[in-house]
Structures are given as C-alpha cells and as structure tokens.
C-alpha cells in the first residue's frame, strides 16, 4: 500500500515537468486508498501543489509571446516557484498600470505582493504599493467580499506600517486600516463560530474564504491572527470533509450554480478535495482561484483527523448543523434567520437538506440525494426538486436595490438562469423540507400569482431503469443507489436545458429531463436505498409500494408515511414535523452535532472526531488541541 502511494507521488512529480499538462485532471480518478503515513500524505499534497503551480506558471491554457505581460495568477505561481523573476517584475509593473477594484482584485494583488517581497524588483513592489494609494477599492456587498477585502487590507497594512492616510486609497493610516480590518475579521470569525456561516457549504465560494484565511496563516505578523487563520482553515475543511462523498460536495449549499448542482463534482470545492484529500480529480484549470491557494499551500498542513474524515468512512452517519441566512436588509422580521441542515452519508450515496424557505436569494440549493460515481466527471449524479422562484422583492430583501432591474440584471451578471422557469438552482419561501435519514419530503404552497407557479424535479441523464409506476412512484437507479420519487400532483416532462457557465447566453441539451408540476399546492417525496439492501430492483420497488403513505394537498399539503427505515412521519406545510409522534424542535439544534463534528451555539469551539483522533478548535483561547483516545 505504501509503495503504491509513493509510486503515485513519483508519477505526479514526473508529470509536473510537462508544460501545460493538467495530469490529475486528465488522468483516471485517484486511488481512494487511505494514506496513513503522514509523510507520504504530505509529500502527495505538495506534489499536487507543484502540479498546479507548474501548470499555471508554464502559461496554463494560454501562451503569451510577451513574457513581460503575465497575469497575476501566472506571476504568483512563478514567484511561488522562484522562477522567471525578471519577467515577473516587468509584468507586475504592466499589470499595476491598470489596477482593478474590489476584493477579487485585492487578494491576487496581495498574493503577488507577499510572494514577491524578496523576489520582485523595487520598482515592481513600488508599483503594487502605488495602486493601494490611488485606486479606490470597493468592499462589495457579500460576506465573501468582505472577508477577502479585509484580509487583504489587514495584510497590506502590516506590510506597509506607519504610513499616513494620504498613502492609502481610503485616507486611513496603516494603523487605522489594520485596526478596522482586524476588528472585522475577528467579528466574522466570532459570528461563524457561534451561529454559523452565512455562505455555508458553498461549492465555489469556499475558495473565497479559504484563500484569505491561508494568507493570514502564512503572512500575518500577529501570531494570534496567524492562529485564527489556521483554525478557520481547519473549521472550513472539517466541514468540507464531513459533507463530501468521496470528495464531491453535495447539497445543501448556500450558494452554487447550474454546473455544480447537476454535475456535483464540477466545483471549486472538488479542487480543494483533490488538493487536500486526494480523493477526487481536480476541476480543469484547478478551479481558477484555486491557483492562489496553491501558491501558499505549503503553509498549511491538513490535520490527519480531517483527512480521515474525508477519506476513511466507516458507518453511515447523520449530522445536524446550523448556519444562517445572509443578512436581510428589509421585508423580514429577522436580520439573519437560522438555517437547519441535515446530512446523512452512506458509502453509496448521501442525502442533505435544509428546512427550506428563503435562503440565499439567487444561488441556494436546498436539498438533494447524490449518489457516488467512481469517476464523477461529467456525471449528473443527483436528484432533487425545487420551486423556481424569481422575485425582485426577494432580491430587495438582501440587496440595496430597486426591484425592477434586478431580475434582468442578475441574468446578465453571472446567474443566467435566475429568471428561467426551468431553472434548477434557487430557494423559495414557498418550499418546506423535512429529511429523515434517506427520506426527503419537500412540500410547496405557492401563492396564486407567483411568477413560475410550478415545481421542477431534476431527473439525470445518468439514471437508469427509470420507471413511472402505477403506484404513483417513479423508480430509478443512479450508480449503486435505488431511488424512489413520488410527485404529489400531476406533472409532465420537459428536456433539461443547461446554461453552461455563469455568462452563458444559450442553453445546451446535456441530457436529462425535468419533471414539471404546474400545481400551487404540491410536494415531492424521495426515498433512497443502497443496491446492497435488496436482492433486486424489483424488490426495492415492491418495498416502496408497500410503505404506508397518505397525503393531501388541500387546504395545505400534508404527508403521513412510514419510511423505508421505519420512521413514522407526519409532515404538514407550515407546521413542525412530527417523527414517531414527537414534534421536532429545530431551535434546540446545536451548531454542529454528529459523530464527527460537534459545536455548541455560541461556543466558539469545534470538536473534530474520527475514530481515536480528536482535534478541538477553541477560539475562546485560540488553541488547537489534538488527542488520541485509546481503545475506540
């Protein structure tokens, strides 16, 4: 086993010598054998880092004839590798002549500034510094914007201390900027570790948090801020590890997009799984922003307990977590209502959900069943339903905007499906979801007059044996998972058409179909099971047909059923779920509760457990405690 791993490392190292190649993206899926030797694990991690840096430094997919005109990502990669330094300096001077504005420009700029501290020419460093005097930087309006903005400002203020307000774009001195950035970062960490993340389980935006935290870990002068950076990385990656199915992050997601929500692997989160856990292929281009993590990746060593959480699964497990909705400026009784998440993970599939309602206004994904695929690339390995809400007023809840231009506006600003009736991304105030292990009941009560008065159920091209049964159940198989989908109202099928990217103008027929049900009072029941649990697909179908199930849609949708796992459920829209005759009280849920992650609301402390391994992240004392419990 050990030899296999060493061989794999050698192969990867050898491959990195080839310009432009993305060996891991093009190769077969990685061996998912658990690597127990820490040295081999770390060597493999650093080999993957080198693969990324070499690919980007060598020009990525775009070659330039002008070595003095490299982009920031290539410059950062070359600086990390310590190569081509003269051209890096020339390129920096060129790039800084036309600086950008906002956090997505700030953090690459900071990366180059710090990586180049001892490598770039004085003129190049001065050019970087000058942009922080001349160019007004927008802070943005979203949590990830602010984390990037303030981590960047924090580090640059430390890099250039004791400088007056005139030398900064915002008129504040280095010390004032440092103090404000520090205050925000500590407040954000405090919020996250007491009531949860606002942008939880984001498929792409995980990078916008992880990269700033790694920068702090690597470059902050204040040891306490370094420690906060490292602990937040552990916090983020522990949750990623716990929620992934062989490296693939599934729902629910505070923010995602069309590509990731159907092809669950196709997300920046998979790049992080590949880089950190080595258990799934990286996305092409290493996730774009992921490059910047790689440039500093040697400053972070993944704790074994988190690695094992991602790669060394034993029993099925349930995790209950809390998070929060991004802040609502108006039209809401609460600024940031709580989100209650349920995760159930098994070898062959995983089921995850929130309780529904209005989450992120554009990009939320509320629930799904996702099955494992040996090679997840190109596979639409998921099933779910949603109400495709499109609402200017909902936008106004979260943004300081007028309602009218927003719907059209967001479709032109990276979210092309927002106003499409057949979209597959989004949350709705008219959806309520309950999950018990691998059973999901989603109920809908859509007011008359609502734009898009129907629900969509996603049926993947990769399902086999799709059967519309006389019983009312729709049966199918995905991977090694049997699936039963019960629409509670009449429906018809339409082809699934896909916006291929945030700026796409046309939809592509990628296969698959949508179950569209044009009824205001509506519902979906999904039950999953492993193929190992039944002698045949027919047996699974028969077991489902035999389950006690009653439902009605008027006056409000309600379902009474016994699940495949023997749970008796009474689920009514607008009322607390009743499980085995006991009403469920979500308010009692902890921040994290499960066999692997545990944290109390308000606790500022997470306990990460895998087998005998345990790590405690205590933000009250800014300490990390590792322990190994004998005998577990």
């Amino acid at each position, binding site marked *: 086993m050990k030899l296999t791993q060493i061989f794999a490392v050698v192969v990867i190292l050898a491959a990195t010598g080839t310009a432009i190649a993305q060996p891991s993206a093009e190769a077969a899926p990685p061996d998912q054998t658990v690597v127990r030797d820490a040295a081999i694990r770390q060597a493999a991690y650093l080999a993957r880092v080198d693969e990324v840096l070499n690919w980007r430094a060598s020009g990525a997919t775009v070659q330039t004839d002008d070595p003095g005109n490299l982009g920031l990502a290539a410059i950062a990669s070359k600086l990390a590798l310590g190569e081509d330094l003269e051209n890096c300096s020339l390129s920096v001077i060129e790039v800084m002549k036309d600086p950008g504005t906002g956090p997505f420009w700030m953090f690459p700029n900071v990366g180059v500034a710090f990586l180049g501290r001892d490598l770039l020419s004085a003129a190049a460093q001065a050019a970087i510094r000058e942009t922080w005097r001349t160019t007004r930087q927008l802070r943005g309006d979203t949590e990830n914007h602010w984390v990037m903005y303030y981590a960047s400002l924090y580090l640059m203020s430390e890099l250039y201390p004791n400088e007056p307000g005139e030398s900064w774009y915002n008129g504040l001195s280095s010390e004032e900027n440092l103090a404000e950035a520090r205050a925000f970062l500590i407040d954000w960490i405090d919020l996250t570790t007491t009531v949860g993340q606002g942008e939880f389980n984001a498929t792409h935006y995980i990078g916008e948090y992880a990269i700033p935290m790694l920068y702090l870990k690597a470059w902050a002068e204040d040891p306490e801020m370094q420690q906060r950076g490292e602990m937040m990385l552990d916090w983020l990656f522990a949750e990623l590890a716990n929620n992934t199915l062989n490296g693939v992050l599934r729902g629910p997601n505070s923010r995602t997009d069309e590509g990731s929500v159907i092809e669950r692997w196709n997300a920046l989160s998979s790049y992080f799984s590949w880089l950190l856990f080595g258990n799934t292929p990286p996305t092409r281009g290493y996730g774009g922003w992921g490059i910047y993590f790689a440039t500093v990746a040697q400053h972070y060593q993944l704790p074994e307990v988190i690695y094992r959480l991602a790669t060394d699964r034993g029993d099925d497990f349930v995790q209950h977590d809390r998070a929060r909705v991004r802040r609502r400026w*108006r039209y809401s009784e609460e600024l940031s209502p709580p989100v209650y998440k349920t995760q159930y993970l098994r070898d062959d599939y995983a089921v995850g959900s929130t309780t529904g309602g209005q989450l992120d206004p554009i990009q939320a994904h509320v629930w799904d069943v996702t099955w494992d695929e040996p090679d997840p690339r190109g596979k639409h390995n998921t099933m779910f339903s949603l109400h495709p809400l499109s609402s200017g007023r909902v936008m106004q809840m979260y943004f300081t905007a007028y309602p009218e231009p927003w719907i059209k506006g967001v479709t032109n600003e990276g979210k092309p499906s927002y106003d499409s009736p057949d979209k597959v991304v989004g949350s709705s105030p008219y959806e309520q979801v309950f999950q018990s292990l691998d059973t999901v009941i989603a109920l809908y009560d859509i007011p008359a007059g609502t734009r898009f008065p129907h629900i969509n159920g996603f049926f993947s091209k990769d399902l086999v044996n799709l059967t519309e049964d006389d019983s009312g159940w729709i049966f199918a198989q995905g991977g090694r998972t049997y699936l039963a989908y019960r629409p509670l109202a009449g429906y018809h099928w339409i082809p699934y058409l896909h916006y291929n990217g945030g700026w796409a103008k046309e939809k592509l027929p990628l296969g698959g179909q949508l179950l569209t049900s044009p009824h205001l009072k509506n519902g979906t029941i999904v039950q999953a099971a492993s193929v190992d649990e039944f002698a045949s697909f027919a047996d699974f179908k028969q077991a489902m047909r035999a389950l006690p199930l009653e439902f009605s849609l008027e006056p409000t949708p309600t379902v009474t059923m016994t699940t495949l796992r023997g749970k008796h459920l009474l689920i009514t829209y607008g009322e607390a779920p009743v499980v085995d005759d006991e009403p469920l009280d979500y308010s009692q849920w902890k921040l994290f509760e499960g066999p692997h992650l545990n944290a109390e609301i308000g606790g500022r402390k997470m306990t990460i457990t895998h087998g005998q391994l345990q790590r405690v992240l205590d933000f009250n004392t800014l300490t990390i405690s590792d322990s190994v419990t004998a005998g577990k």
Partner: protein
Amino acid sequence: MKTILTLFTLVASTMFLTAAPEYDFYICAKVNRDYVIGSKVETVNGVFKRTDDGSWEHQGYNDTTLTAVAFDPRDHNVVYTSANNGLWRSLDGGQHWRICNDWDMTEARHVAVDPNAPDHVYLSLPDGIAVSTDRAQTLVRRENGLPERGKYTQLVAIDRTQAGRAFAGCEVGIFFTENGAESWRRVLETADITNDIKQSPHDPDHWLAVTQSAGAWSSHDRGLTWSQIDGVPSAHSLHNVTFDMTNPQRLAVGSWGLGVLTSEDGGKTWQDRNAGLPEPHRVWRVGVDPSGRLYASVHKQTLFYSDDFGRTWQPDTLVGSLVNYFVILPKADR
C-alpha cells in the same frame, strides 16, 4: 449659524429675481453599465459638475457606486459622498478622500448636510441612520424611535428652515426628528419603502414624497401630516420627485414603468411626459436644473433633457449615464 440662514434667505429671494441665478449643478452618475464586484471599471463614474459650456466635469474619485453627494454650505471643498463602502469625505474639493465609517456600516443610500448646522452629517443606511456632529470625523447610529426591523433608510431629507429638523424615508414610512436625530417618530406609515422626500424651494412648508408601491404623498404643514396625491398612480415604483426652482407650479416624478410624470399646477393634475423618450419607460431619476431644464435619466439608455418641461426631449452629452442624484447648490466662494 446666522451666516447660513442669511445665505439661504438670499438664495430664496434671488432665485426668483435673477434671470440666471448663480448655482452649481451636480449629478452622481454611473456610466459603467452592468458593473459588478470583480469586473473592470471601464469608464469614469461618480460626481460630475456641469460647466458653463454645458459639459460635465468629473470630480473626485472614479466610483461606480455613488448614491448621493452633499456639500458643506460654508465651503464646497468639503464634499461628502455616500457609496457602497459607506461615507466618503473630502476636505479639499475632491483631491483626497477619507472613508468615515467603520466596517459595521455599509452600502450607504444617501448623505445629507444640515444647512443650519453644517457640521452635522446624516448617513442613510440599509439598517438605519448614522449621524456625525463633527463633519464626519466620527459617526454614531441615531435610531431611537425607528423600528428594530423596517428601518431600511433610503434617505434623510433635512428641513432648511430649522437645524436638526429632518425626515427619514424608511421601509415602513416617513420618520421625523426635530432634535438632530436624537429621537424619531413616524409621521406617515406606508406599505412600502419611501424612495424620496423633497422640500419645496418656494414654500418650506410644502413637502413631497414618493414610494416604491404606495404612491406619492404631499404635506403642507412642514411634513407633520401627509395626504396621498391622487393623480400619481401607485402601480409602479416611483423613484424620485423634484420641484422646479424657477416655477412653483412645476413638479416632476421619475418612475420605473410610468416614466416621467409632470404637474404644472402644483400637483393638482399630472401628465405623462414620455413622448420622445425611449421605451420602455424606465426612468431612474428626474431632476430640474437651476434654469428650469428638466432631466430624465433612463435606465440602460442615457440622460435626456427637456427645455419645455417634458414635451420634447434631447439626449444629453453624458452618453450612457445613469444618474442617481441631482444637486443644485448656491455657488460658493470656495
């Protein structure tokens, strides 16, 4: 204080006597269409001042997110802008700027300076109101009397006749203070956000307000009681309202859906003045300059002007602009 009052008295009296009153005319405009965080700023945006030859002169920073601009009436080199980052202040006519708020204030909607207490600056926020009493050197929240939820504040409009007297346009209505925001009370409950509040330049007791979906409102008792204006429909969002300082009978409303509505009888009757403007009628803001020229900023189009109060329109020279704010200021020595 006496100087300021004298200045405004002079302004009020001279505006009717002089053919070409000495005013400056400013706008906050965004020219960079579809800018989102992370994309490139490709054009000049922010505060523009109209020059004597009718062109627009950019002043200060290039910022796509400005919502309003305000000046210290004693010294126009003291400039305040509200923007995505919060409140910016320049003490030297826009050469250097300082962000005045901490991280817990964001996405400012509007800024106003009390003409009778010019050190007092009011910042409207999506979660309330902050006030400075020292020219924005420090800012504190002053929200006593505002509801815990529903205090989204689109603007604070200040009564030019009395220091510390102001109205806040909020999510759930119009709130009133007469003690410099030490306390607020609601004087009009509305079903939706108040988008604009204006005091007449002719009659300081006369105020107008427009809302997102609750129509237009008028007050003739210094803003203490309000009545709905019958001639302005509430079916479409009303973005702003303006008086014409050259003619007390002329009013204009900018609306998404209704376009430009004008009244030339003090608000008794209203006319659709969209002929010549591009369809659909998505007017972001209307403004009237010191000479009585009416402007309409049309979404995704540009700025238009009319010299016959909306009967005919011509495109302005600031091509592709979207105006967030119009300001008329008495010219200052500095």
